[in-house]
């Protein structure tokens, strides 16, 4: 009975890890579904290609070669080293030791050797990341709301990676059986030297401790994701899949408005048919996260907070308050707040007197946008901060009529004489003279 204790503990730990993870995923799914439905069922092939290129192939990261290369190292390392996870889990459940080694023969050595090489590469890459963030203090990692949690989060994850990689190497280095195989201990073979005067028992103890810490660390990491910008390692895939396919210059035409405008322009049809069908009049634009669509909410959860968008935003560059990254982070913070509210109130949202507009994002930010699409172009995982800005402007104009005075003048000019300036439409051909 006693001899199975580790297996039982392992299964319980694994189960807990997966249970909490699935709870997080469920919460994520529920929160995203608080947004409005959006039709993204078209053109599956192109969507698939985009996802493969941008998320899997990291196609947009290469634009900034240094961080792009380092990111690929960490990403590839992360994915490949996780193959090892399979063995660890099976070993844990079955109580075996390096289960795969007996089946794979010499290939096992190559595999682990690759993992070790990658682990060290990841360590190096992560160190550079840390230096860029904390020593060089790259501008895009600071500014707007990159204080407190977002700042710590970025570092915590780097430390996490370091600890996991070090544990992985230590676990291999102190594994006598593995070292005796002398195949695949590419790096750990050297580390093994440090432990030469340790007794067999203490080596075993360190090996076991590292093994357990490693797997528990991974489970914690998995559950940490939901609270972190690192959710993007999962969400980058759906996010790039569902991203807009049309020219980025196109802004969607609001269907609810189309209906009304058609009625206005052609009153006869207004009375002839389907007036009864007129579903509940939508609120125009967005003042809170529930008015946004699901893609926009998915965007907010996917944001890596890398600040590429903000670093190219003309408004931000010239010192305005607007920061597209902040738009995404605010949206995520607010949808989280709404989600918690729902959890606390047995599944219903109780008005908390707050909205995304004003309490998170101010009008001043919204009106500073030139709709230049630089942020959209720059985002490595195809997030569209501009669409949120525009939906909120729509609310400001169509529900609150609170555009800046000059814009109101511009709009009444268009309404009255078909041009943003006060010229008569009848003079439109006068340039000829």
């Amino acid at each position: 009975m006693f001899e199975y204790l580790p297996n039982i503990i392992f299964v319980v730990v694994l189960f807990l890890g997966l249970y909490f993870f699935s709870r997080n995923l469920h919460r994520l799914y529920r929160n995203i579904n608080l947004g409005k439905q959006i039709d993204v069922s078209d053109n599956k092939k192109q969507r698939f290609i985009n996802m493969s290129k941008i998320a899997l192939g990291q196609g947009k990261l290469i634009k900034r070669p240094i961080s792009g290369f380092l990111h690929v190292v960490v990403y590839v390392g992360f994915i490949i080293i996780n193959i090892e996870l399979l063995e660890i889990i099976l070993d844990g459940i079955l109580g075996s030791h390096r289960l795969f080694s007996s089946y794979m023969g010499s290939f096992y050595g190559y595999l682990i050797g690759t993992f070790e090489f990658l682990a060290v590469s990841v360590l190096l890459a992560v160190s550079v990341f840390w230096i860029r963030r904390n020593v060089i203090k790259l501008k895009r990692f600071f500014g707007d709301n990159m204080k407190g949690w977002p700042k710590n989060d970025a570092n915590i994850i780097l430390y996490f990676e370091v600890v996991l990689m070090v544990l992985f190497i230590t676990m291999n280095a102190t594994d006598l059986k593995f070292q005796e195989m002398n195949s695949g201990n590419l790096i750990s073979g050297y580390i093994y030297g440090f432990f030469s005067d340790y007794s067999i028992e203490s080596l075993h103890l360190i090996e076991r401790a590292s093994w357990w810490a490693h797997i528990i660390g991974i489970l914690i990491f998995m559950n940490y994701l939901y609270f972190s910008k690192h959710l993007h390692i999962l969400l980058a895939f759906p996010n790039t899949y569902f991203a807009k396919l049309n020219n980025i210059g196109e802004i969607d035409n609001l269907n609810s408005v189309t209906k009304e405008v058609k009625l206005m322009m052609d009153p006869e049809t207004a009375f002839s048919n389907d007036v009864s069908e007129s579903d509940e009049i939508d609120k125009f634009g967005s003042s809170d996260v529930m008015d946004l669509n699901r893609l926009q909410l998915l965007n907010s959860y996917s944001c890596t907070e890398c600040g590429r968008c903000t670093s190219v935003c003309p408004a931000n560059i010239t010192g305005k308050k607007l920061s597209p990254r902040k738009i995404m982070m605010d949206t995520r913070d607010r949808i989280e707040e709404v989600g918690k509210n729902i959890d606390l109130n047995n599944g219903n949202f109780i008005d908390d007197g707050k909205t995304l507009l004003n309490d998170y994002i101010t009008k001043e930010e919204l009106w500073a946008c030139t709709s230049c699409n630089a942020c959209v172009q720059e985002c490595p995982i195809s997030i569209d901060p501009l669409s949120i800005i525009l939906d909120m402007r729509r609310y400001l104009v169509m529900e609150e009529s609170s555009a800046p005075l000059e814009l109101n003048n511009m709009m009444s000019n268009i309404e009255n004489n078909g041009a943003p300036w006060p010229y008569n439409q009848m003079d439109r051909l006068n340039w000829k003279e």
Partner: protein
Amino acid sequence: MEKNLHVKTMADFAAEGKEPEVLFWVGCAGSFDDRAKKITKAFVKILNSINVDFAVLGTEESCTGDPAKRSGNEFLFQMQAMTNIEVLNSYDVKTIVTTCPHCFNTIKNEYPSLGGKFKVLHHTQFLNNLLKEGRLKIEGGEYKGKKITYHDPCYLGRANNEYNAPRELIKKLELELIEMKRCKSNGLCCGAGGAQMFKDAEKGDKEINIERTEEALETKTSVIAAGCPFCNTMISDGVKAKEKEKDVKVLDIVELIVTAQDL
């Protein structure tokens, strides 16, 4: 020396029972703004010089609704759009060319789902096509060999992925193109888009057009070319603010062609 421009409206064509080859959508800036009117005329001169059978809507044209849409006024936008589409469809228009990337983007991308399906070209694309067909010939003129830089309008470049057409024309003019640090898909906005043209900027430490103009001036070229009347205004203002208007000209590509061909 100013030759008479030959401009017919859609209504003129309809009265003659004819159809033009293309509709030239002039746009609000091109119709009313003094600086932009020169660009309109330059483009017409080129069209006249090679006898392109084009028409304008004249008094039947109205704002595309772009600044309203980007301010958030979807109602006004769609009213404008549907009115325009009705006019365009009544003349059975198939191809539209415009000198304004905002009109270009709106008619091309946002009119189709409201019932307006046209082939839409930016004037640099249109001229490029004529060049390829051999109808238009361009060679270096007054500015030949001079250094020039080109500012990508957001709504032509990033929004619609057209970076080449204007550059091809510059090449044909035998100008030496010096790119700015931020160009093509990295191009920096001039500051006019999203209806910013019509309002003061929010508080900050700099105007966007100054930031962009400084970058353009860094190329040490004597001409800054653009393909958008709004960019043109913003950068011209920037050049003035930097007191460089004696040394540096801000010109639309069609104006360069007109000077080169001595039209």
